[in-house]
């Protein structure tokens, strides 16, 4: 080891290696320039086509009015705050419900048959029903039941609909992750004397989790946007706020503002997840190949 370390201190790249490094550096630079240039060109062509179109002036006034954007911004932002809260609360509940359903669906043995059946039926039904329909059913039907102890607010029942619908999708993501862990891992866990549950908790789920992070992100971003659907129950979220602002003068800029704000939420989140996954080495080691 000491020998190897001294070797690393003494080493200076040879002539041929310096030439190779220089060539690689130039190639990287050239690729970057070509990529940047072609991107700019494409954007320029698309931008030019839009701006030179005959109706551009009207579109610009209706959709990209700066004063309107500034005046509607506070209201849309206020609406977005509701989206964020709905999303955060629902996401936690969705993870809990869907993980439970996924675990139930992967249970083995005849004892667990009724549970598996229940889990399968739930996933089948709620994946099959359009989200909007579930929101209508629960949003108007739920409060009408008059159950004591349960709130009757549209927000509560709208969130319930989101959780029920999304959990069915996310449960399948988790199930795919659980089943992708090689059976030998389960055997190794059980051979150490870990129980079924301990093996699941400490061996299978940690490995399943890292594999399903990208599809989970997909569903989270999707939820962020679908959280706006509960506006049909009369709750005012970002899109509803934008709609109200638009109704004042038929200028559609508030919709663009809402769209930009949604992107401002999702894009950093996606990048953060990518970075987190890379840091943990979740994406495997592909090297240069």
């Amino acid at each position, binding site marked *: 080891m000491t*020998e190897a370390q001294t*070797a*690393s201190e003494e080493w200076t790249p*040879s002539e041929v290696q310096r030439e190779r490094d220089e060539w*690689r550096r130039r190639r990287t630079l050239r690729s970057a320039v070509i990529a940047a240039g072609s991107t700019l060109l494409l954007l320029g062509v698309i931008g030019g086509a839009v701006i030179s179109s005959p109706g551009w002036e009207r579109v610009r006034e209706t959709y990209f009015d700066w004063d309107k954007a500034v005046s509607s911004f506070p209201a849309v932002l206020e609406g977005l705050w509701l989206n964020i809260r709905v999303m955060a609360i629902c996401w936690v509940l969705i993870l809990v419900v869907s993980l439970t359903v996924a675990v139930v669906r992967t249970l083995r043995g005849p004892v667990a048959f009724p549970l598996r059946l229940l889990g399968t039926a739930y996933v089948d039904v709620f994946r099959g029903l359009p989200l909007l329909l579930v929101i209508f059913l629960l949003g108007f039907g739920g409060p009408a039941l008059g159950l004591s102890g349960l709130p009757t607010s549209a927000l509560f029942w709208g969130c319930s609909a989101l959780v029920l619908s999304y959990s069915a999708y996310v449960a399948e993501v988790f199930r795919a992750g659980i089943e992708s862990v090689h059976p030998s891992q389960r055997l190794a866990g059980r051979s150490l004397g870990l129980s079924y549950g301990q093996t699941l908790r400490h061996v299978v789920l940690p490995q399943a989790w890292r594999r399903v992070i990208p599809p989970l992100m997909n569903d989270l971003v999707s939820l962020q946007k679908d959280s706006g659907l509960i506006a049909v129950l009369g709750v005012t979220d970002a899109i509803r706020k934008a709609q109200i602002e638009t109704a004042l003068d038929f200028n559609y800029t508030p919709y663009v503002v809402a769209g930009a704000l949604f992107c401002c939420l999702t894009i950093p989140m996606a990048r953060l997840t990518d970075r987190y996954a890379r840091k943990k080495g979740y994406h495997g080691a592909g*090297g240069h*190949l």
Partner: protein
Amino acid sequence: MSESSTELLRLDGVRKAFGDHVVLSDVDLTIEPGQCVVLIGASGSGKSTLLRCVNLLEIVDDGVITFEGRDITDPRVDGDEVRSRMGLVFQAYNLFPHLDVIGNVTMALRLVHGVGAEEARSRGLAMLDRVGLASKAAARPDDLSGGQQQRVAIARAMVANPRLMLLDEVTSALDPELVGEVLDLLTELKGEGVTMLLNTHEMGFARDVADQVCFLHDGRIHEQGSPEQVIGDPQQERTRAFLSRIRA
């Protein structure tokens, strides 16, 4: 540099480091066509990394690797084309579990060498026959024993007639009674004139089959020569210590 036109592979001052850890340092080696060169040394001495550098699966930090008279460490060289003229066999077989045996063997013929499905199949079957597994063409890798899987892996690497076979600890994952069948196959291939660069812990095989044995320690070749010399009468203290540990 005296350029001998007969050599197939030549390493000059090859160096590879992962971060601060220098894995290979100043490695020189030549292989003539038809030769079998065996790398020996403790785990972590750099044997596998050397094979992976030759196959361009790792990019060397310095030094030149010449294959068939061409500097393949030049960044302008098409690595895929170079790899298509070498065969690499892994310790853990690395067969594709979603394909049957013949599918594994013929994949490179069809996708890389542009051979038609019919001809690829007949060449694949002939190759499987050569490794004694023609009857297993339709089997899935998971249904085979370790020794059979490794022979399939050798057939997969050899089917396109590579100029050089690289074998990375190909018997280390096998049960002792299965080691023999793979080593027998390698001995046979050597007899047929296949050029091989391999690393192994099987000293008996190295002694019987190798034309040249290289002892690696901490990424450097400490001793190289005929098996009689390196294994039979090692000159270096490190080589002696390694061999006595292997035999103990």
